[in-house]
């Protein structure tokens, strides 16, 4: 069955507005209020389907993968590799060789920086990122630049929080050896125009890595359609467990890259005279992997797929519009991140109340938001602010959550105007 027909079939069956009940953590009260969890951009909650899949594996199927001839090892391997296939299908990877398990987006990006870029980078070479990147798409490049004498360039953003596309394209020259950009900004919610960016980069034969941590839980992602060279994301932002993520890479590129780490499972034959590395994707998976994490991510994908990411995206977009409208109506609000194309995130400031004070007062009302620099300090520097409060949405949120946020902000105003 194709993905399209799966989605259509699901249209009739699953109402996204009813998904909240699938997430046990969202049925509790915090400080006497029903929880309004608006921090999924930091880490999302997990549905019972994910929690149960991990539990069942731990209770019945645990053994090391790719090693034993006995039943449990076989079951663990099937579950672990089966998850890889379904995760690959979810992002439309061309083959399972292109789907590498990592500990998360951060490790995925470090892997590419060290294994793809480092061996060939030299002084005079450049890596291009944008001003809105998360620290995990900045620091790995700074490290590899320090190691090789290459230089890190930054494409500018405008006041709305959009990447200045013309300026970015102008920076693409023969010296750029990698372009690494977010799909969706974690601090601003901006959706980057990837098709254009990737086409421009490829026309100059520049490989492109996408930090998709904030995109995969909210938008349909098709790595073949995007034609990106690498795409990284984390399980825990898409309703899976922490400590697991994916590096998608084109097979032709992964094939040429040396291993990132050495150890068990990534070898075919080890002799003191030399070692033959295992095939893709195992070449990049040294040591006993996070088996339960991979199974949890597989379960998260199974949860999302019948909902249809197009529908999830539409639902969240409607909610984001409502959130932005409600916030805009508050006297003294300043929205940070007002790009034309956005997903799931709204950062803001209220009067001269420091974001941490907002965070404490909102928590008291059962509302969980992130406050601070959101691991995107250069974005805060750009706006000349120490941080923001950030409400971020996921498919389990509803208008009540947003009402609770707005009410909590009213209380903050009251306290600070006393």
């Amino acid at each position, binding site marked *: 069955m194709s993905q399209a027909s799966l989605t259509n079939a699901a249209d009739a069956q699953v109402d996204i507005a009813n998904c909240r009940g699938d997430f046990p953590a969202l049925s509790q009260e915090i400080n006497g209020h029903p929880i309004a969890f608006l921090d999924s951009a930091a880490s999302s909650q997990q549905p019972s389907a994910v929690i149960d899949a991990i539990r069942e594996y731990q209770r019945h199927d645990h053994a090391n993968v790719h090693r034993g001839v006995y039943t449990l090892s076989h079951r663990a391997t099937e579950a672990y590799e089966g998850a890889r296939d379904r995760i690959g299908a979810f992002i439309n990877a061309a083959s399972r060789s292109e789907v590498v398990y990592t500990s998360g987006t951060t490790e995925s990006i470090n892997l590419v920086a060290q294994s793809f870029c480092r061996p060939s980078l030299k002084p005079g070479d450049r890596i291009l990122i944008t001003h809105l990147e998360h620290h995990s798409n900045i620091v790995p490049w700074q490290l590899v630049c320090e190691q090789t004498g290459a230089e890190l360039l930054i494409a500018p953003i405008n006041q709305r929080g959009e990447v200045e596309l013309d300026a970015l394209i102008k920076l693409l020259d023969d010296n750029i050896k990698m372009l690494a950009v977010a799909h969706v900004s974690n601090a601003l919610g901006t959706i980057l125009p990837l098709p254009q960016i990737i086409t421009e980069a490829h026309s100059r034969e520049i490989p492109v890595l996408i930090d998709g941590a904030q995109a995969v839980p909210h938008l349909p992602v098709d790595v073949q359609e995007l034609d990106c060279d690498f795409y990284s994301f984390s399980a825990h932002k898409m309703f899976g467990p922490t400590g697991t993520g994916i590096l998608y890479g084109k097979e032709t590129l992964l094939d040429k890259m040396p291993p990132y780490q050495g150890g068990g499972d990534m070898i075919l034959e080890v002799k003191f005279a030399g070692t033959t590395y295992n095939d893709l994707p195992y070449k990049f998976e040294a040591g006993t992997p996070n088996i339960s994490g991979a199974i949890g991510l597989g379960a998260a994908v199974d949860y999302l797929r019948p909902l249809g990411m197009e529908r999830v995206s539409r639902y969240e977009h409607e909610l984001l519009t409502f959130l932005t409208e409600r916030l805009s109506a508050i006297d003294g609000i300043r929205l940070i991140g007002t790009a034309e194309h956005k997903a799931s995130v709204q950062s803001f400031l209220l009067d001269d*109340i*420091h*974001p*941490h*004070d907002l965070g*404490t*007062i909102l928590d*008291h009302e059962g509302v969980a938001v992130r*406050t*601070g*620099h959101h691991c995107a*300090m250069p974005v*805060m520097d750009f706006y000349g602010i*120490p*941080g923001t409060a950030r409400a971020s949405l996921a498919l389990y949120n509803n208008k009540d959550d947003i009402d609770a946020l707005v009410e909590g902000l009213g*209380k903050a105003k*009251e*306290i*600070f105007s*006393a």
Partner: protein
Amino acid sequence: MTSMAYNNEELRELYRELILDHARSPRHFGKLTDATHSAEGINPLCGDKLKMYFRIDADDCISDACFEGSGCAISVASASLLTDTVIGLKTEDALKYFSALVGRLAGRQDAENNNADADINLGKLRALEGVKEFPSRVKCATLAWHALNSAIRHDAKPATTE
């Protein structure tokens, strides 16, 4: 003063009038040009960043104190209250306030210090005690005080609350 409509004792304790007043109009805010001692206080978790300046005379008396930087209401109010408190004190007495306050708020200073400084009258610093109900905010209230400690001890690295 009109009575506040929110009916929440803990929040009211945290954001007492004195705290809000010092947060809005911090005392001794700015750079002390003839400082003899200074230290930065950084809370890496939330990005609060304060720089504390002190002029300490030959007799070990803190004759002036200033601070600059940015932070939440609690960290700014605490820094402001700190300057009010320590000007005119001997450094050893200022440090007693440091350990007494940190001990009182975090409840995890070593017992010896706690006992030794238990008789210190915190005075208006008691306005900071509301943070005890908000464990994630204790660091905000103690940031400036850790910087005071570093400055007096001449630590080279910025003080952090970690």
